[in-house]
């Protein structure tokens, strides 16, 4: 139970809540409860500081809600979930240290991460230890590609899926001879997205005229943006995430680049867009693996959005959605396997079809990538938005099977099952 004290709450409601709280408390204190309960530990490894902290916080909120939902239903195989939260600090080294600690503390599941660098080290450590890793917000192809592991599952879409989903829109809007400039985050995810997008763009006749790497956590994008201004591309692609993307788009707007070229952000997340508002987001073309507006289409999304909004008075982002799916899908797999044994849980997840936030989705057996749609969206103009979270129109839905890498495109070989 959570009692929220609103500053301007009606006095009678406040008094009622007060009495209720005290009643609940005293019933807890004086009941002869405190019977030993069986619990299982889940390790949550998210950035709570650094440039992806907003995304980490959002994931954490959803993790807590999913865990509360399962505990309310009696736990997993009768065991209640307790969780340990670690701050990755947006550092692969810190993430590895946290993961080892969580595993040492007996976590049956590790989940989280808001960057692919974080996901890669968690996947590696979990594989070594034989612990399931349900990746959070991670988009690089490698996580279910060359860095894929038998114990790792990813619901979030990947760079290939985003690029392929975007291709149709880019060609339709800017023609096949368009000139592209890329500003990209210079680490595994940024390079992964750059590779996938360049390939798609160039295969369709587009031309890359500029490619500028930027460090993670850059505060100023002025220098690269001035280079873009001089180059005058048709399309500027900003491959940055979290606060980096916020900084870059703010500065793009200040330099008035949007008047001269189209701006594409291959991966969007609502907390980034909300921080910028419709003035900056309008017209920006992007992809998302999930958007709260899908609550109008899918009952599972509606349930999640309603619960999240009620608890936190804000909309969940795609990282939160991944967190929700990760916990509920893990719990469901354990229940179906009737065991916490990691191999049995893996067996229960592989090729398992489910309907949770979207329509039918499944965990593909050979790479552990969730096969699910990717949504192409365009930023709404200020006059179109109904509230601060209503920032995008979904213009195109690409089905998972159409976007997923083929065996040839992804030659991953997961470790064998015993």
């Amino acid at each position, binding site marked *: 139970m959570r009692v929220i*004290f609103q500053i301007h*709450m009606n*006095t009678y409601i406040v008094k009622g809540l007060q009495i209720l709280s005290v009643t609940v408390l005293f019933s807890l204190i004086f009941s002869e409860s405190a019977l030993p309960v069986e619990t299982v530990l889940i390790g949550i490894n998210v950035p709570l500081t650094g440039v992806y902290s907003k995304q980490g916080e959002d994931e954490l909120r959803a993790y807590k809600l999913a865990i509360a939902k399962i505990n309310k239903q009696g736990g997993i195989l009768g065991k209640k979930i307790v*969780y340990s939260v670690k701050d990755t600090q947006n550092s692969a080294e810190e993430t590895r240290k946290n993961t080892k600690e969580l595993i040492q503390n007996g976590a049956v599941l590790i989940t989280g991460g808001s960057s692919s660098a974080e996901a890669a080290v968690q996947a590696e450590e979990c594989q070594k230890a034989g612990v399931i890793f349900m990746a959070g917000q991670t988009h690089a192809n490698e996580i279910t590609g060359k860095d894929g592991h038998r114990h790792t599952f990813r619901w979030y879409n990947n760079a290939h899926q985003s690029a392929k989903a975007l291709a149709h829109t880019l060609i339709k809007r800017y023609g096949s001879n368009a000139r592209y400039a890329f500003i990209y985050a210079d680490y595994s995810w940024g390079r992964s997205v750059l590779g996938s997008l360049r390939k798609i763009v160039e295969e369709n006749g587009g031309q890359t005229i500029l490619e500028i790497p930027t460090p993670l956590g850059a505060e100023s994008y002025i220098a690269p943006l001035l280079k873009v201004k001089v180059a005058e591309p048709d399309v500027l692609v900003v491959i940055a995430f979290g606060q980096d993307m916020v900084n870059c788009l703010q500065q793009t707007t200040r330099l008035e680049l949007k008047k001269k070229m189209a701006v594409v952000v291959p991966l969007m997340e609502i907390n980034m867009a909300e921080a910028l508002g419709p003035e900056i987001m309008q017209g920006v073309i992007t992809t998302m693996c999930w958007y709260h507006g899908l609550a109008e289409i899918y009952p599972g999304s509606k349930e999640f959005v309603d619960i999240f909004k009620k608890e936190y008075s804000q909309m969940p982002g795609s990282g939160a959605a991944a967190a929700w799916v990760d916990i509920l899908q893990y719990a469901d797999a354990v229940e179906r396997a009737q065991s916490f044994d990691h191999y049995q849980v893996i067996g229960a997840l592989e090729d398992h079809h489910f309907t949770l936030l979207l329509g039918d989705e499944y965990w593909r057996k050979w790479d552990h990538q969730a096969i699910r749609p990717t949504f192409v969206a365009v930023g709404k103009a200020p006059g179109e938005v109904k509230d601060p979270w209503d920032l995008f129109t979904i213009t195109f839905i690409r089905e998972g099977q159409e976007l997923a890498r083929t065996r040839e495109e992804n030659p991953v070989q997961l470790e064998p099952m015993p």
Partner: protein
Amino acid sequence: MRRRARVAVIVFVVISIFLDLTALAEDQEQPTIVVGYIPLLAQLPLVVSYENDRVNYSHTVVKLVRFRSFASLEAALRVGAVDAADLPLAEVLSIVADHIPIKIIGQYHSGGSVFESLEMKSVAESKGKIIGVPGLRSAENLEIIRILSAQNLRYGLDFKTIKVPFNTVLKSLKAGKINAIFFPEPYGSIAENDGTARQMETHEKTPVRVLTSVLAIRSELLEEKYKMALGEWLSSLARSCLFIEEDIASLSARQTAIIQEPYFGFPRELVSSSLVNRRGMIRFLYEKPDKKMIATYQQRFLDAKILTDRVDIDTLVSNANLQPNDLSSQ
């Protein structure tokens, strides 16, 4: 060419300064409340609140600072290095007696201290003994005096209490420098776990609710500009009390035991066990300051010569009758 480069540099510097100022302005929107804490189970709501709610605060930024002793925490509150702290009542009374603007705004726990010894089985054996307490102005010291006076043992004559730092208490007990301790949890549990002590019988027919400490803030926090920030933090603190109580009842306090680890560093099982067994009758509930109880305690501190100056309780306790849910009615 050179002129153009100079203009570009100037434009770059101006934009950078503008961005920095914008970021600074955003940071200043939410006032920061610096909260001092000591790793004690009674102070769990401070860290549980922080851990559970810090990502959801919209009116404040809370910063937790760890202290090793009541004396250092008290000093930090005196000089304004922290804005809020959970301190023994006598410490707060002594700060206010020095005309430092501090207010008591609430209390969120009661109990949580246990009487432990290896050589003594009951408090009746305390004659001629030295008992370790966390501070001479602590509620534990006052309780010892009360409990032992019921056994006709006189403070200073029949028994002595000495202040023992948290980080050496177990060593002192083990070395026999003190005969017993009356200390906040989990020190008693730690002592029992390593065989250094066991809980003593106090011979109390009706266990007394002990006001171990109170939540004190710098008076400045009651100003209008902090109103939303303070309300949000107190709401979070009140919720954390319920969270801990629910966790004790439903999960044997295991979630709380995990949460405290990075802040307190106590073993999970020990914390869980202490809370589930309600050692020292520990309870968590956010309440208004109890003026009557504070007055009674003040009188007892004065009688025991632990304090020398009387403080006006009405001035000490926030007249705003501040509670998380009452902020709007001020």
